[in-house]
């Protein structure tokens, strides 16, 4: 029989990659963008990104020179867009680890086509995220005081502060993600080392390939290490955004001090992460002609995750209102009614529309398979999740004493820092797609039919 049917012969599910792709074809296809002569299109993305990233650098330089007063923050809104952006980027950074670690442990093989891509996105998002709490402090040159560095004053950080937990949580997340991503890259780096012709390329890939030769022993060590790292990274998926949510939940402000925040933040983070993966992937698979590897099956799965997490987030929004009423606290109830009807109601309803209402379209398979529509929805998800954090932070405008209530509006520098962080993100991404295999070749090869050593058993319906 024809081995190249549309059904994966191993587990009788639809094939994860186009059945016409074989080992060699996959290598060629994935390595192609690296081996091309730099296309004009890449420069069209890269140059604006670098300029934007440079404007971020300029904004930060001015910020450090002049003070955080250049932003719109004030009393009572001491945290503004910087923290909004931080949480936004950390959230986006969640999809990578979820896909690479959690789905790996659950043997979700469809992850292989998208894991490298989303892990890279995670890393770059975490880099953007880390930049914001760094620059948002008043005296950036003393930021190292949050690290437990032994000193003659015996002054230690305050381990009770959620901000300190943040420092540990996000930096650990960042380092584990980096390690995980790098370990996964090693076999592919070796492939690239063997394929590139330039001396410099051979040297650079060679260094980072760590002498990978593809021996069985190498594979065995690799897989054990990968499994262990996946195990290590999995709790981080839950912990990072839980800890980020503690920044708000551990405070005692109405609208912030809620126990629902950790799960709600994690769901929101996965939601926003998948939204961003979709945004990027939908573009990349077309530009780099990867439709055979990142199939509609992958896209469909991701859309389902978006629908699920979006609905969880919607449930959380509703539950917040219920708990605010149920708590009997007038401050709490006011905070939520104010969110929906106060001066910033526009932001609230933007958030609800983008995060809860629009993703409901994805109940229909036809919609999930409409690439253009999916792309638009993914943009809405990104917008909605940014607004969610904005709505949370803006709760500061009205807390306990009406005498201290105020308003908040961003300045030019808030906007320039936010847009600039996208510059940083896309710069890193452009470099990634140009110089590293954006799809895990070695892993994808394990899910093509050729990887199945016993196709005849599947054909005859025999068990393993």
């Amino acid at each position: 029989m024809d081995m190249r049917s549309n059904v994966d012969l191993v587990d009788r599910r639809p094939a994860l990659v186009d059945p016409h792709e074989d080992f060699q074809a996959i290598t060629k296809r994935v390595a192609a963008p690296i081996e091309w002569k730099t296309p004009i299109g890449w420069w069209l993305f890269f140059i604006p990104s670098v300029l934007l990233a440079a404007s971020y650098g300029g904004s930060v330089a001015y910020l450090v020179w002049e003070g955080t007063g250049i932003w719109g923050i004030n009393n009572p809104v001491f945290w503004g867009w910087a923290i909004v952006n931080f949480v936004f980027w950390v959230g986006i950074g969640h999809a990578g680890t979820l896909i690479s670690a959690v789905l790996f442990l659950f043997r979700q093989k469809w992850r292989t086509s998208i894991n490298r891509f989303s892990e890279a996105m995670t890393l770059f998002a975490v880099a953007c995220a880390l930049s914001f709490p760094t620059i948002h402090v008043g005296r950036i040159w003393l930021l190292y005081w949050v690290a437990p560095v032994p000193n003659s004053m015996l002054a230690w950080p305050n381990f009770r502060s959620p901000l300190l937990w943040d420092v540990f949580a996000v930096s650990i997340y960042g380092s584990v993600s980096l390690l995980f991503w790098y370990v996964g890259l090693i076999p592919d780096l070796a492939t690239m080392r063997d394929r590139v012709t330039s001396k410099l390329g051979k040297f650079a890939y060679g260094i980072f390939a760590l002498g990978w030769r593809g021996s069985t022993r190498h594979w065995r060590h690799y897989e054990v290490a990968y499994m262990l790292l996946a195990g290590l990274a999995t709790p981080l998926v839950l912990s990072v955004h839980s800890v980020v949510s503690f920044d708000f939940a551990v405070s005692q402000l109405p609208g912030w001090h809620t126990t629902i925040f950790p799960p709600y933040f994690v769901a929101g983070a996965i939601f926003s992460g998948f939204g961003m993966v979709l945004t990027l992937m939908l573009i990349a698979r077309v530009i780099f002609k990867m439709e055979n590897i990142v199939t509609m099956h992958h896209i469909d799965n991701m859309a389902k995750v978006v629908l699920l997490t979006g609905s969880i987030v919607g449930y959380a929004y509703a539950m917040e209102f219920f708990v605010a009423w149920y708590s009997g606290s007038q401050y709490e109830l006011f905070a939520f009614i104010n969110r929906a009807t106060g001066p910033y109601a526009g932001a609230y309803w933007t958030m609800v529309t983008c995060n809860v209402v629009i993703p409901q379209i994805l109940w229909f398979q036809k919609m999930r398979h409409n690439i253009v529509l999916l792309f638009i929805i993914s943009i809405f998800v990104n917008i909605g999740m940014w607004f969610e954090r904005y709505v949370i932070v803006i709760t500061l405008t009205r807390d306990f004493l009406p005498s201290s209530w105020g308003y908040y509006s961003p300045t030019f520098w808030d906007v320039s820092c936010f847009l600039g962080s996208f510059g940083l993100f896309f710069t890193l991404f452009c470099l990634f797609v140009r110089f590293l295999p954006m799809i895990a070749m070695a892993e994808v090869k394990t899910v093509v039919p050729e990887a199945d050593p016993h196709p005849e058993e599947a054909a005859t319906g025999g068990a393993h």
Partner: protein
Amino acid sequence: MTTENETLNKPDIPSRRTFLSAMGATVASLNTAACIRKPYEKILPFGQRPEDRVPGRPEYYATAASVGASVVGLRVRSNDGRPTFIGSNKQHPTSKGGTPAWAQATVLELYDPDRSRTALMDGASVDPAGAAGAIRAMGKAIRDAAGRGLAILTDETPSPTLFRLMKTLKEQFPEAQQFRHDEMGEANGQAGAAMAGIPNASFSLNETPAVIAIFDADPMGTEGDTCAFDHAFASGRDPDAPRKNRLYVVEPYVSLTGSNADHRKAVKPSEVPAVLAALASELNSHGYELPKLAGADAASDKFVKALAKDMAKNQGVSMVMVGERQPPQVHALAHMVNAALGAYTKLGAWTQSDAPEFQTADELVAGMKAGTFKYVVSLSGNPAHSIPGFADAAEKAQVLHLGSYLDETARIAKLHVPKSHYLEAWGDLVGRDGSVAIQQPLIAPLHESKSAIEVLATILGSKESGYEQVRDTHRSHVASGDFEKSWQVWLHDGVVQSHPVQRVEPAIQAAQIEGYPKAGSSDLEAAFIRDLTVLDGRFANSPWLQELPDPVTKLSWDNALLLSPDTAEKLGLKNEDMATVTLNGASLDLPVWIQPGTADDVAVLPLGYGREGVGQYASSGFDVSGLRPVDGTWSASGVQIKKTPGSYRLACQQLESDQYGRPIVREASQTDFTADENFVAKFEVMKPEHIDSLLWEEPVLPWAKGEQHQWAVSIDLNKCSGCSACVVACQAENNIPWVGKSEVLKGREMHWMKIDRYFKDNNGQFEVKYQPMGCAQCETAPCENVCPVGASAHSPEGLNDMAYNRCIGTRYCANNCPYKVRRFNFFHYTVRNDGEYGMGITMQRNPDVTVRYRGVMEKCTYCVQRIQRAKIYQKVNGGGDTKVKDGAIVTACEEACGTGAMVFGNMADPESRVAKMKNNPRNYAVLAEINIRPRTTYLAKLTNPNPELAEG
């Protein structure tokens, strides 16, 4: 031909010194390329320490300041020779240990870089000797003419020495004429008193009346001895007070007094006289013989009837007060009412003034226009701005201007002489009760300035030293014994004990009053008011007072056209719209601010803002004085207001005025309090037993564990009038920067303490509630546990310490502060202040308090520097007893507060005032329900409404 007009040009010692200095400058400029000669100065090392001077230990001197005829006794702190803080003098009888906000700000005024520094003759600077020579030459020239052609213009500064010199001048220059004009004065009040048969005398209130009826006056804010009135008023608000009081206010705008009223009636300015006439008329039916004026009964209503009944019931202890904004006839009627009610015999005393006879500003301008005066000596103020027509008339005379700024008058003056600040020059001030305080300088003049006493003495050709002049005035008051000894005692106490006081018994006849104002028009009326922070504009160049929000409107850095909500709606105006106000042919565009409680059809125009060319801050806002009628009256009808395109942002420091039903300011009427002493508990969101955690055992609180010092503050809302002096005092004590209008607009003001004010609609009656709010030093402080670097930590004495050096500026603490009383240095405000103010601000700064860097959080510390100083003093001098005595530590806000609303102390000591206040049934903590256990708690406010009016 030499005329007298030219004598000012000819100083009598110009020659040698001027010549040498000019030559020196030429020679020096030739040599600068080669070398610079250092000035020859004597250095006095502290090897031999001046008496009482201990490095780092501040010294305190008693002195006094005045605005108009209101005298405030002060105890000023000097650090290493620099005045740094204006404290209050508890012994001074007309300020009773209080200081108004303006007095607090004078310490910064001293160092104002915009003060004029050298004398100017025709715009060119002259040295002090040259200026003095010119003045003396003028004196000589006038003496020959027996003073003909000389006009002396002064304000209402009640200085006995100035009065003595004026009388001497009148003797020596019989033809000279003396004029008086003061925007903060009481010309209408004086004229009214004269009509009632008590000329040249002043009334001082000694105890609180039981019923106070205020007619368009602001004795808490801008008129009279505000501190003494606040003190008397507060003494009648306590539930234990021997005499409780009730305050009725009839006024067109919301004054500070009106905002504290138990009953308030908003009427147009022109209707105020009718309401008083109606009261007089109503009192007739209670058996008093008072004139019945036309139209009086028409103005009578429930309010007036109830007030008359209340006043009659409290015969002898009820009193009417009329403000300067009303014409003399209304004052005269008030005196008759008071005399009939017997108020003047029991509540205070009338004192005869030593002031010589003065003519009015109108007469001066008329004389100047007629060419009567060749010389006009302006000893105070800025007449070219404040007296209509003065500037034009000044062309015919030579003006000698003694002033602090190069203002409008300085620019038209022949000779401008910088005026010494009261902290730089000797003087004396007599209060309304006849008490005299010596104005003792704390620092040598910073610039080439002279005091009014010195200038007058120079004109007289007398000794120039203000010190000797003041001593000469009071030498005669020591009948026997050692003058020097008495002098030392006076300087120490700040009050001259033996000064003779002439009491007068007012002989007021109930006569028909000529020309009593008729009831108002139906037009839109303008009400010009003194501003609550910069007054008539004399303090407009103070960045502290500009940034200090108006207690009622909460506007800072600007004035605005204040309108009632209905009037604004009728005119189609909303907040921050621009409107053109046209009056008497003049018009001005200014922004609109809607102030509930303002009478309908009244355009309230605060004076004192928008003065160009005075200083860097005074130009803020809009100068409404050009709209004012030329006769200087305070209200006018026939105003036209039109909306103009455009808007203007106003820096309001409190955007929300409603309490949203939250138990923040708790209050009850005196009657309800008597019925239920524990009424505050009814407001609690959570019962105390529900707050204690079930999860852990509550720790024993420090004051229960026998700790020696546990600091706390109690604020009696009954006694707080909202005057905001504490806010400025805090700013002075704690080196708090001002941030400017643009930053206030962003909500970044730095005041460690603010006065929250809430509006309330009580059955249609507009009410205002004040609540001082600063860091409450929570026992379980939400700010502390969230700081990642532990910059905010709890001290064993219960303070919520802020380690500025450790702060990295995450601002998490401020987010988590439920009172939002933490302040962040978004920019390097301190350095910005330095840039604007130069060395002056660095001289004012308190060396005991760290100056904060950009990116650092700050907040109220309970004046920890004062706590530490008192603890050290106690340890050194206590003979083994290290426990600080109650009252030994006075925080800056507490020191400024004349009513004792704020009390700081040790709550571990059950005998301390603060511990007793915490046991008061009215004691409550704001936001107690979130279990933060604040150390600052409040005593609930008690109102005292008239049951007849309270029913609505």
